[in-house]
């Protein structure tokens, strides 16, 4: 049996019946990582010794009643893990070892999840391809010449290449869903406030959300169960009860009303992707759902409002990297201001500097109303579009991204072109809604992502519909042809 290929629920059954041990499973994954990660480059840091210790502990306790106990996972490198390096793929945090756990990390540890290591990402989660990592680019397991998407590209690639059973990512403008789509796996951005952000290195605080990247929809529900919930350490986490998301996993969409916004199905979207989404809509129809075209008129403005709001929040959040309390400090400096400037100029990469500059400009005296305030007002309009649509529809069906994964280096010279990759995912963050991406087809051998957008805190509906779609199709059963490299 190829243990690394298992889903959470499959591995859990075997662990529960004591047919395999968590240690065996963990060793199988490190073996897999050794065989393929030279090519995929999903991980920045591996934590083998501690992982084996955790797995042996889980075996010793022998209580596998919780579906995540003893399951090996990968965590994006912007989520703090106590005593395990957390770099955000930035030189400025290259040596940062968090003295505490993010709430999500401690929730996983409580269940004896085996953290294999930390995954590569675009520096400070700013990017859509994982090429902005200060260390190296991660590659798409379906085609090593292509990007895995981003910013959670390491997490999505690790799941797709079976280098972990599941992974945790974060999503500010599509950073879970877009790489999940590009890598042919399942990724969910929960409703803003559903999962605690405590210990997630902040990019844009009003948009950031942590979520699961998994091999199927069932696993997504299992992971969401474990990480969702109110947290005193994050005052923006919602004090709303967490349902059992696995109860939503019923292949029944009869009577559901689906809206397909025409703004997401226009010329900017590849024809094969539009076709795949329409084919998916017909699959839902055959199962008893109803769909029609709708309009979300402010969609195209969402992208530009995002590229004011996110950099503005980032410029403020990243002010903390000053070389004083943690992180890397410049070697030589004349005075305090010189220390700050040298540290930050040497520590941040080009895209991070660009967004800090854009955000600082948008917030600076004289420009605040024209940019930041204007963008926040547009955000209201974007949200209203969705509010109106959800009066009539149960969920909204759109592509995850306008294209399939592009070639490494293809978009690095043109930030605007890179920003367009997030056009289908950004509005969801702007409105704080839950969105899930799952495979719905292939174009030129590369996976196509289907995105389901739900009402606030209505993860159950999109999980149920995604599960029904998955049961009715075979796309998720395809695996990239990456094999052991000699």
């Amino acid at each position, binding site marked *: 049996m190829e243990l690394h290929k298992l889903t959470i629920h499959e591995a859990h059954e075997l662990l529960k019946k004591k047919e395999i041990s968590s240690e065996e499973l963990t060793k199988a994954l490190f073996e897999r990582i050794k065989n393929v990660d030279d090519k995929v480059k999903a991980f920045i840091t591996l934590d083998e010794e501690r992982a084996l210790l955790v797995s042996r502990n889980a075996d010793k306790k022998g209580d596998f009643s919780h579906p995540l106990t003893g399951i090996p996972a990968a965590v994006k490198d912007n989520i703090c893990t106590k005593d395990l390096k957390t770099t955000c793929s930035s030189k400025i945090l290259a*040596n*940062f*070892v968090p*003295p*505490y756990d993010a709430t999500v990390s401690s929730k996983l540890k409580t269940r004896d999840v085996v953290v294999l290591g930390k995954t590569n990402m675009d520096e400070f989660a700013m990017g859509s391809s994982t090429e902005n990592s200060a260390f190296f680019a991660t590659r798409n397991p379906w085609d090593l010449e292509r990007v895995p998407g981003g910013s959670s590209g390491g997490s999505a690639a690790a799941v797709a290449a079976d280098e972990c059973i599941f992974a945790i990512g974060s999503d500010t403008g599509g950073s879970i869903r877009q790489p999940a789509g590009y890598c042919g796996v399942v990724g969910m951005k929960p409703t*803003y*406030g559903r999962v605690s952000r405590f210990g997630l290195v902040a990019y844009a605080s*009003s948009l950031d959300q942590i979520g699961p990247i998994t091999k199927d929809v069932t696993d997504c529900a299992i992971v969401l169960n474990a990480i969702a919930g109110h947290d*005193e350490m994050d*005052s*923006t986490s919602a004090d709303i009860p967490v349902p059992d998301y696995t109860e939503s996993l019923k292949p029944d969409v009869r009577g559901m009303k689906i809206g397909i916004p025409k703004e997401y199905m226009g010329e900017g979207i590849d024809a094969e992707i539009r076709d795949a989404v329409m084919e998916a809509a017909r699959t839902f129809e055959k199962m008893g759902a109803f769909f029609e075209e709708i309009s979300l008129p*402010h969609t*195209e*403005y969402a992208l*530009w*409002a995002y*590229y004011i709001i996110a950099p503005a929040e980032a*410029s403020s959040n990243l*002010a903390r990297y*000053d*070389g*004083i*309390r*943690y*992180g*890397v*400090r410049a070697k030589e*400096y*004349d*005075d*305090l201001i010189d*220390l*700050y*400037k*040298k540290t*930050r*100029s040497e520590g*941040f990469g080009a895209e991070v*500097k*660009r967004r*800090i*500059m*854009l955000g*600082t*400009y948008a917030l*600076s005296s004289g420009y605040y109303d024209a*940019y930041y305030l204007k963008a*926040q*007002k*547009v*955000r*209201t*309009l974007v*949200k209203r579009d969705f509010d109106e649509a959800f009066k009539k529809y149960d969920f909204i069906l759109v592509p995850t991204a306008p294209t399939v994964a592009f070639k490494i280096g293809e978009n690095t010279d043109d*930030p*605007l072109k890179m920003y367009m990759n997030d056009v289908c995912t950004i509005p969801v963050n*702007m*409105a*704080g809604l839950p969105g899930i991406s799952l495979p719905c087809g292939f174009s030129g051998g590369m996976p196509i992502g289907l995105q389901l957008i739900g009402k*606030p805190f209505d993860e159950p509906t999109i999980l149920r519909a995604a599960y029904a779609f998955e049961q009715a199709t075979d796309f998720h059963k395809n695996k990239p042809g990456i094999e052991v490299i000699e």
Partner: protein
Amino acid sequence: MRIAKETVEHVANLARLYLSEEEKAEMTEKLNSILDYMDKLNELDTSDVEPTAHVIPIKNVFREDVVQESLPLEKALENAPDRDGNFFRVPRIIEE
């Protein structure tokens, strides 16, 4: 061009960044092209629209003022790039 090189230099100073001449030129060009796109937003009349800072209604969150465990001193200092005993060491900021 809405942003001149001088503006880029001013903003870089606010953001505590040094930019090389090359970076300044590149930043001026790219920020201008990004900001040109931002003009799209002015097509929308938002005079009667309330801004959204947060999608969920946020209010102040209070808790009881009780003593809780905090990070041990050694743990809090272990990432310091430069320290002196129990202090973070920084360059002198007060004139002698």
